[in-house]
């Protein structure tokens, strides 16, 4: 079975690097997008098995990007973990309403993120 693909849409390079390093010793393949627009484009092209979506993104917000992905048949059922800001609890609800499968509050523990990923998409 081929390796599972994960797309991480996040504008901060250091945060992307955390996930990159976290997944280094796993079999997951990581795709990265720095904003919502690029995230949608990459998702449509590569059909990842899981998407990690930051909510506060430049160009297109994470919420709008999730809605766009849910409308397209190819990505309508792809699991999405929304990464929200803890200070804005209403973000949780917005994220779930926009089609997120789960959410994680920032700052998150990489350990916790990895167990959440494994739960949604078991390693191949």
């Amino acid at each position, binding site marked *: 079975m081929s390796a599972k693909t994960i797309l991480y849409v996040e504008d*901060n390079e*250091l*945060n992307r690097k*955390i996930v990159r*390093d*976290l997944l*280094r*010793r796993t079999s997951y393949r990581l795709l990265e997008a720095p904003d919502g627009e690029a995230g949608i484009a990459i998702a449509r092209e590569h059909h990842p098995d899981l998407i990690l979506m930051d909510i*506060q993104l430049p160009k297109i917000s994470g919420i709008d990007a999730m809605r766009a992905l849910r409308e397209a048949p190819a990505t309508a059922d792809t699991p999405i973990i929304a990464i929200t*800001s*803890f*200070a*804005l*609890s*209403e973000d*949780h*609800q917005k994220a779930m309403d926009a089609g997120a499968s789960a959410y994680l*509050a*920032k*700052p*998150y*523990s*990489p*350990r916790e993120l990895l167990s959440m990923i494994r739960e949604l998409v078991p390693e191949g």
Partner: protein
Amino acid sequence: MYAKLLVAFLIIVLLLIIVGAAGLQVLSGVNRRGNELVKLQHKIAAYRQLQHDTTSQLYAVSSALVVPEERTLEATLRQLNQFGYDLDRLEFVARDEVELLGQVRDDYEKFIGVVTHVVKLIRGGKVTEGRELQLTQAGPLADRLERVTNQLVNRAEADMVASIEVGEGAYRTSRWIVIGFAVASIGLALLLGYVISWSLIDPVQRMDARLREIAAGDFSRRVAVVNRDELGALAANLNRMNDELGRVYRELQAASRLKSEFLANVSHELRTPMNAILGFNELIIDGIYGEVPPEVKVPLVDIHNSGQHLLRLINNVLDLSKIEAGRMELALENYLVRDTVERVRASLSSLAAQKGIDLVSAVGADLPVAMGDAGRITQCLMNLVGNALKFTREGRVEIAADLRGDALHYRVTDTGIGIAEDQLETVFGAFRQGDATITREFGGTGLGLSITKKFVEMHGGRIWVESELGKGSTFSFTIPLRVELAKPA
């Protein structure tokens, strides 16, 4: 307003005086006519007496002629004196009847002369001559006197009837005048009262309605009061206050919106580097970048604990700002109590381990799925456990949760320094710790407990503390198992 009220009262007083004066006038008229009637009655009585005297005199003289005795003659002369006396009285009570009275007096003088002469003749034994004189002179004189006095009586009686009629007419007129004045006064007083009270009540009602709207946050309208008195000035001030409040309110709303946006941005900006610091630190600890020597792990755990602590402080400061701006809302979702307690224990276990404190949890078995804001409940437990670890030098800290009826009971028990009894009430206030010296030894902002209390109350629960100095504290709070709707902060 003062002048208006004064004028109204003066007008009413004036009306009362006019009604009183009219009444007095009528009363004095009635009194005067009463006096006149009494005088007329006296007159009539005197006239009748005179008539009676004339008749008695004639009778006395006639008797003297029939029985010519000295005793009868004396009586006749006495009668004459009585006649004179009554005539004098008549002149006193009927001074206005000069002509007729003069006639009466003349006739009386003549009558006295004749009667005196007759008496003389009788005494002298000339009875026949006396009778002759009596028939020819005294008789006609007496007749004339009687006629004249009858005339006087009739006239007086006519006067009396006329006077009574005039009196009745005057009484009727006066009555209508008094009634008219009274009715007009009452009507005018009522009208004045209505006008004055309405000119007071209407503006007051309008201002009251406007004040209610202002209190409800509507600054869009102004109150219209045309009065040029104190109420007008009050309304003008009310409008000024309304405009000023509206301006300040709009500025506050704008400032509050800016503050919220600013806080959201600050929150995001702070979280991004915090995420990197804590994330990389955890990756290092977990050996992602290679084996970590044990002596390096200790400071790495310090970084982790300090980072978590900083995060709690940031969360508390941001939350307090949101609560104060009234923008805090609960995000309700299904959650498992065990997961919540476990997350708190896991987050703070390294801090506890570092201080040599046992951090244990005891969650009741088979707790059903709960409904609430799991993030806020986690934050509450984090605050309480963070405090417990901070104020405990040795021993243990226990996080417990169980279900009693419809409410979840969370408890955080420590073996720390405890809280003095007189400070148990104040620990939940913002920026408060038990004692100022505690701040110096243990640090902290004192925000955690007041925010925890707020979150618990937003869930419809309550929080309390039991403590003994030197032995430890137990903070307990209840949360309904299924929170129905978010309550505004």
